[in-house]
């Protein structure tokens, strides 16, 4: 009467892999830096889904899986805060948030 019996592990992993690839596509193809950040968040979520699935199916008695997921959530929060602050700073100085228009460093 739980998920372990009903759904095989590989199916969860396929969902996580799909989510990761969607996020990868988003962060590679978006021009808007906020859009890139959204793709990165999707990828981090996919990783967390994987970690929780492995924890639940393989080592449900250990806390390591959940602890790792919590650390990833922490890092994601820090990353989002700094990333969005940078986007706002870039917008202030250049009035754009598109990644291909912020090319001052290009030789």
């Amino acid at each position, binding site marked *: 009467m739980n998920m372990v019996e009903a759904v095989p592990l590989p199916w969860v992993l396929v969902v996580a892999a799909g989510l990761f690839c969607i996020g990868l*596509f988003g962060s590679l*193809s978006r021009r808007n830096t906020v859009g890139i950040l959204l793709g990165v*968040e999707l990828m981090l*979520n996919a990783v967390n889904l994987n970690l929780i699935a492995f924890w*639940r199916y393989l080592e449900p008695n250990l806390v390591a899986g959940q602890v790792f997921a919590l650390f990833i959530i922490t890092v994601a929060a*820090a990353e*989002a805060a700094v990333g969005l602050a940078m986007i706002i700073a870039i917008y202030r100085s250049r009035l754009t948030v598109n990644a291909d228009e912020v090319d001052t460093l290009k030789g």
Partner: protein
Amino acid sequence: MNILILVIFFGLSAFTLAAGVMVVTVKNIIHAALWLIASFFSVAALYLLMEAEFIAIVQVLVYVGAISILVLFAIMLTRHVTGEGVRQLYQRWWVALIVAAALFGVLIVPTVFNFQWSVPTAPDQSAGLSSAVQIGTAFMREYLLPFEIASVLLLVALIGAIVIAFEERASRRRVLTLAEEVELRRQRGESLRLAATPTAPEAQNTGSAPSQP
């Protein structure tokens, strides 16, 4: 019961992936952020299905309650250039599509060939899942150093974000009062029709607005 769980799992997975696709393809960036929230939610529901209730609630708390709000704020503070009508994808977006699809193809190989995960011992499902109490204990014992490092990371991110996004009060673009607007127009000899007030950020940024007295 298993059928019920299977149906819920497929529904949630389909919704997660569909919302993810909407995040990366939809034109309007605010809609993308809202779809991202939907995706976060269904991932949290998947965690609940896997009986990780603490992680599910933390997911909602951090991702939906904090990160999404932050993203929405950032979009709205930069909203003059994020509306529809602007090209959202790079011209060579299909390269990204090929890369992502190829990666998915590689990742799915073990499943297609029915790879058996090498589990050292059969997990004992009856012994009870690790709970929030055990997670807290683990943070204070085995994972104390990573825990402290994570807190330092958060502090650094907090200070860094403030430093990067901080704007001096004096350099802040100010919204004019109606009286100032009328006075400015009179000085410039323009018509006094307020309906034609320029609202684009460039108009205020080029120095046409009087700076702070």
